[in-house]
């Protein structure tokens, strides 16, 4: 059927059957739907499956490292394991979960839009993501095994002589597909946020989550085409006899590193910013306060986005051919807006009525874990320290603190928005058990790796010399990985246990933003009615007419005048 999109308008009575959508169900719905909520749900399920696959690979890696000379897997298998663990987690889980899954579902509803701007392009993004994931993972089933050159595919290790076989080509092909998927999602998010906001939803009234996704989308459009171009060059080097990255033909191997990290560092913020947005929403709602320093948050996010394009070569300090002071200064500068965000999160909680629900616990766990990862990142931005720790477990620990913080944020987002998407709450007790396993597991997992790195243990080795303490620290880290695995099991148990058990209602958290104004789950095209939008938290203003806040936290002189709906014939 053809849907003519009328913007939703407030009516006197909820007329819940005036816009029922009769579409296909089951597998046909999955294949043909252009509804952003259905596509977002497909993204969510696929991304969580990828998380489980990547996590299983990680558990095998940690099992191999429990003793110094273990032979659980061969060296070649170990190379495949850490390559595919990194690739699956970065390319197929965190990224698509950040800007494909929750963003896809929540952003249009937060700004009062009926759908994404390009619904069919949105569906295409999902299909490219799914086929890209299948392509990359099918490397395990071809002769020679999956890609084994590390998730960064440095030249000349990734050329056809050092890494022959179909696994590497499947890796390149899978990345081409998921790369285009990300680019299309970026286009879609930008167009949706620029053109489909509800009346009164000015740019500086958008929820922080939507702001962060806008900047993420711009970063996607800046960064991902560079990766796609680099992958095509790499493929040409491997198969068509070009010499872009090989010294023999006059090429420059370091050019691959420049191209890869020009995508790769913005990618770190493409992964992180959506989760920053999630925890901002969660902390504000569960502290029962508006976001502290709304505009400061927006400008901090914008400057992180801007700076992120000028820091790529801090991954390449030890190549000896990059401009150390420039990249060191730019990397250190990123600590400033990130610090502003950290203080604003604490300021939002400060003197609020903090409710430690599972989502809030996850958000606080995010703050602590991200702080550890962020502070060690400042060490690594300093070239003298980086020369000492480069390619050791210190770096591994640093970025695992960061990405485990993102996992905590993702889980918080699922507990916070899950009821909106499915209509049912998850069990809070099991959720808290999951949180403590995940949070303690993360610290037990990463902190020994910092020590290992400082004691000189190199990354990407299947066996290691029996230096004093190395084996014990590795065993502690493995225990942490097992705790994280248990938390994932707890999450699965929670989904099964809570299946359609606790109906959520429209607004279980007494939340702020527009998505909590509609039903759970929202109807086709999202809204039966919309409130007047007079601040960045319209749903709160509507539900608490005596406690509306004017723009950005200043108390309003004329309370109660902004909560009226517009009656429409």
């Amino acid at each position, binding site marked *: 059927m*053809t849907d003519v999109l009328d913007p939703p*308008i407030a009516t006197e009575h909820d007329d819940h059957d005036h816009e029922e959508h009769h579409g296909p169900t089951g597998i046909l719905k999955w294949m043909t739907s252009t509804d952003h909520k259905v596509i977002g749900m497909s993204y969510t399920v696929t991304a969580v499956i990828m998380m489980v696959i990547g996590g299983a690979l990680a558990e095998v890696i940690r099992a191999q490292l429990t003793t110094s000379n273990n032979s659980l897997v061969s060296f070649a298998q170990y190379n495949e394991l850490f390559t595919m663990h990194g690739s699956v987690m970065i390319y197929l889980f965190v990224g698509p979960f950040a800007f494909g899954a929750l963003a896809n579902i929540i952003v249009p509803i937060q700004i009062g839009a009926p759908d994404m701007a390009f619904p069919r392009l949105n569906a295409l993004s999902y*299909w490219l993501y799914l086929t890209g994931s299948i392509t990359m993972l099918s490397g395990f089933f071809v002769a020679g095994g999956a890609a084994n050159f590390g998730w960064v595919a440095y030249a000349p290790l990734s050329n056809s002589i050092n890494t022959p076989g179909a696994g590497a080509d*499947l890796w390149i092909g899978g990345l081409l597909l998921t790369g285009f998927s990300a680019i299309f999602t970026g286009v879609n998010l930008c167009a949706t946020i620029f053109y489909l906001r509800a009346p009164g939803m000015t740019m500086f009234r958008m929820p922080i989550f939507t702001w962060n996704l806008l900047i993420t989308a711009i970063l996607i459009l800046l960064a991902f085409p560079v990766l796609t171009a680099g992958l095509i060059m790499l493929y040409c080097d491997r198969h068509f006899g070009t010499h872009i990255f090989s010294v023999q033909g006059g090429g420059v191997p370091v050019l691959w590193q420049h191209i890869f990290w020009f995508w790769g560092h913005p990618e770190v913020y493409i992964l992180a910013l959506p989760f920053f947005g999630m925890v901002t929403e969660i902390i504000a709602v569960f502290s029962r306060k508006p976001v502290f320093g709304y505009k400061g948050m927006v400008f901090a996010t*914008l400057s992180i986005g801007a700076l992120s394009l000028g820091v790529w070569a801090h991954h390449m300090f030890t190549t000896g051919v990059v401009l150390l002071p*420039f990249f060191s200064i730019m990397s250190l500068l990123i600590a400033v807006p990130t610090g502003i965000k950290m203080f604003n999160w604490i300021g939002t909680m400060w003197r609020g009525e903090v409710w430690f629900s599972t989502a809030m616990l996850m958000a606080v766990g995010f703050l602590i874990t991200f702080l550890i990862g962020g502070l060690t990142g400042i060490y690594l931005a300093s070239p003298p320290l980086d020369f000492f720790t480069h390619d050791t477990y210190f770096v591994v620990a640093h970025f695992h603190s960061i990405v485990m913080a993102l996992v905590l944020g993702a889980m918080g987002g699922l507990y916070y928005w899950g009821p909106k998407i499915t209509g049912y709450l998850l069990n809070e007790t099991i959720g808290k058990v999951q949180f403590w396993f995940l949070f303690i597991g993360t610290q037990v997992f990463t902190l020994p790796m910092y020590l290992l790195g400082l004691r000189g243990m190199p990354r990407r080795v299947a066996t290691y010399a029996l230096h004093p303490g190395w084996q014990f620290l590795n065993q502690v880290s493995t225990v942490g990985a097992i705790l994280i695995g248990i938390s994932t099991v707890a999450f699965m148990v929670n989904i099964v246990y809570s299946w359609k058990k606790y109906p959520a209602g429209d607004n279980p958290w007494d939340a702020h933003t527009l998505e909590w104004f509609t039903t759970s789950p929202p109807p086709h095209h999202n809204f039966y009615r919309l409130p007047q939008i007079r601040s960045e938290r319209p749903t709160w203003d509507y539900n608490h007419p005596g406690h509306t806040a004017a723009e950005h936290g200043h108390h309003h002189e004329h309370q109660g005048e902004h909560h009226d709906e517009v009656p*429409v014939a």
Partner: protein
Amino acid sequence: MRTEAKVLLSLGLFFGVMSVVYWNWGHENAGSVMMFAGMLLCFVPGSYYYWWSRRMRARPEDDPNATQAQGAGVVGAFPGTSIWPFTLGMGAFFVVLALVFGIWFLIPGLGLVVWALFGGTAEGRRGGTH
């Protein structure tokens, strides 16, 4: 429209300044070109939005005092369901498999892509098939 333009133009300005500073300090080609291209990518849509923001009245979503009724009217016509994204995605999948396993995969791949392009375009013109 004004804020959207400002976001993109200020990002572009920053990338432009950075590419000049980086080129003069580091004399490194790849990064300078990529940052310069980043500036262009921000300036092209940003200047377009700025151009329009000076020529059109504020849209309801740019007006802080807009009522929901001001947004009334048809936004556009979209197909409620569509099989063509799936078809196009599978076509792209086979094209990529052709890069790995053999050129013959291009036959189903390009076939599905072309079919989806025609089907999707026709569907868009009609405003949907179902």
